[in-house]
């Protein structure tokens, strides 16, 4: 039986369904019986402190890590049996950027397009458009090894978009990107969501998450501690309607941010 519980079966409108997903490293649970659903076309924020299990979850959902237990489906495709089909419909921007640094940015996008099965002319057109859009056109011939971190992030994002994915996994996409490019990227992501692309998004910049995401899940020490729209989470946690996502987040992960002054300062 592929799905252990009927409730875990993907419904027609579901883009991502995760049920009891668990990953153990040696005996330590990095992700501990995590379950959630993301409807198609939603902008889903996946939040948590460092080491909470965000990247591990993304790696499992994109086939880079095998779950120790649990099940998941992307666009109705079972992660355990349809991994290659899943890779056809998703785009991934990982936190660590494993790019082919001895290719130029343009060559890399040509390569990515061909690997996704795009025709030569289609790849060329989309490459030019992406490079222009992400302000990389002047750097198209530079080897990626000579790119700045922000440029690497943009070229990796371009490669994740070139095949028009239905689900996009973005692990800290705005990390290291300048404010102008950050605005371009967030506007683009918003438009993608409007066009029905499902976005699974992690970020530590909580005001950006608050502005962009329709729904969030908060993971702490491998477990989901809250999930829903911001209003739903505010209601669940009994915080005021004017509480920001940051206030809610700090309450959820039980972070004590009050500190006394350092004894020798001042």
């Amino acid at each position, binding site marked *: 039986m592929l799905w252990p519980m009927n409730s875990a079966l993907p419904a027609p409108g579901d883009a991502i369904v995760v049920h009891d997903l668990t990953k153990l490293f040696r005996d330590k649970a990095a992700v501990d019986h995590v379950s959630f659903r993301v409807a198609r076309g939603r902008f889903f924020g996946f939040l948590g402190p460092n080491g909470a299990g965000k990247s591990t979850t993304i790696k499992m959902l994109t086939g880079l890590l095998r779950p120790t237990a649990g099940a998941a489906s992307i666009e109705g495709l079972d992660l355990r049996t349809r991994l290659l089909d899943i890779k056809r419909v998703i785009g991934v921007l990982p936190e660590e950027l494993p790019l082919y640094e001895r290719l130029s940015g343009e060559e890399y996008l040509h390569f990515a397009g*061909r690997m996704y099965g795009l025709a030569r002319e289609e790849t060329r057109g989309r490459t030019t458009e992406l490079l222009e859009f992400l302000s990389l056109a002047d750097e198209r011939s530079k080897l990626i090894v000579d790119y700045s971190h922000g440029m690497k992030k943009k070229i990796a994002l371009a490669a994740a978009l070139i095949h028009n994915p239905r689900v996009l996994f973005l692990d800290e996409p705005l990390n290291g990107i300048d404010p102008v490019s950050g605005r371009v990227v967030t506007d683009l992501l918003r438009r993608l969501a409007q066009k029905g692309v499902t976005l699974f998004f992690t970020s530590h910049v909580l005001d950006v998450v608050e502005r962009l995401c329709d729904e969030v899940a908060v993971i702490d020490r491998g477990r989901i501690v809250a999930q829903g729209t911001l209003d739903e989470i505010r209601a669940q946690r009994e915080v005021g309607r004017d509480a920001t996502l940051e206030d809610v987040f700090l309450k959820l992960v039980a972070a004590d941010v009050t500190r006394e002054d350092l004894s020798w300062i001042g």
Partner: protein
Amino acid sequence: MDRLIALVLLRLKLEVRALSRARERAIGLLLMAPGFLMFAAAGSFVVFFGVRGLMRAAPATLLPALSAAATGLGLFWVLSPLLTGVAFSEAHDVSRLLHFPIPPATLAVSSLLSNVAQPMTVAALPILLSLALALAGVGPRLPAAFAAALLGLLSVLAAAQVAGLLIHGLARRRRFRDLALFLGLGFGFVLSLGPVLLLSAGPSAMRALARAVLDTPLFALSPFAWGVRAAVHAARGEWLPFAANAGAAGLAVACAVAAATTLIHRIYRGEVDLGEAGVGPGATARMWLPGALGALVEKDLRMTWRDPALKATMLMGLVGPLLFLVFLSQARAHGTPSTGFLMLSALVGISAFGANAFSLERRGVALLLAFPVERWRILVGKNVGAMVLRLPSLLVLMAAGAFLVPVVLLPAAATIAVVTLLLAAAVDNFPSVLFPTTAPGPGRNPYTGAAAGSRGLAGALLGLVLMAVALLMSSPFVFLAWLPLLMERPWLWVVSLPLALAGAAAVYAMLVSGAGRVLQRREPEVLERILGEE
């Protein structure tokens, strides 16, 4: 002084911690320890009896011979990061300490003193002691001779530190780093061929070289030789030349420390203009080969050509067949070396074994396997890339073969090479998938190899077994290509060569499809292993 002690202790603590935290490094050091002991013991033996022998046989040559040897060894030590890819004594990465209010001179001296605990430095100490013993015997002049020899080692360490800082500074520009790596590997390779060429030139050439080295006064001016020269003078009781040479060696150390201090100032604080970052190819990018398979092959070829270490390795691969061809041409005096030539073709082919389908990818394997391409297709792409990179060797072989053997043998030789290439690449997919090697982590040296460990050893053993399997699987098809020569029926090649190629292609298809299935099944585990996320 407190800061100096703290810095030296920090370096030692970091090195011990690096060993205790990384099991592979600790195992690697344990495996290397007998090697260092043997190096120290053998070095001490050779130096002691060599120097004693020279003192008896030709005392006049002792000083020039030791000066030349000290200069050669000193240069090799200093240039070791470029020539061998491994620094015998490492320059401390002072860039992380620059935000502390520490004078650069303190940083330079602390880094130099920390090198005393490096394995190669420790291994050199008994050798220097045996040199002093050989020169002065057990007597009152021994301490002075040993101290002078130590001063010589210190000058090498100080110069190595300057070279390390220079390389580190230049490496901040990718183009310099690439160029230095490529030239260094090439120069090291040419040097390694030196003894072979010298041996082939015969004893008269070696005698002439030795005479030229001993006659030149240049080595007396080498700072690496001053310590050893002081040791010789101390042993002879010639105190004025001892003082002059020891003083000069001390001055050389001081100058090197001053140079290191200046370099820390100028390179790490950005006071040296190293030029603009290099730009890549200017023309519009194209992926010429069709389909995902073509893109994979083309990507590998472009990356190999642009990666200095891979390019150097590929070019060095051309020399192997050339050396064998020299031997074959010598064998030609005793008849046509047809069988030897065909064996050489098989050797070129089997060289595809050990290429490791994912070695070029390093951490990019996560990217490669993120693409929705059938896994057998990815393996074929990697195999074709590896085979294309061996084509130059094959072409060299064919071109030289045209002069060495009857032309009619060339198609058979090419077939044998292609058959063994195909099957070696196909079998090699299995260790790549079953025993993947951990790639260096982000920000780590991308050229470091596999970590030593039990799995590495098991992988190596499996590799040996599978190489034998590849040879065994190739043998029927090699035999088919060989048969007409054995039977002295050259017309049979019209049938046997296409048969050999078709058979090998069929076996290749079966093997690669099997390896593709294994990869698909084990994909997350392969990724976990390569990315070190277990």
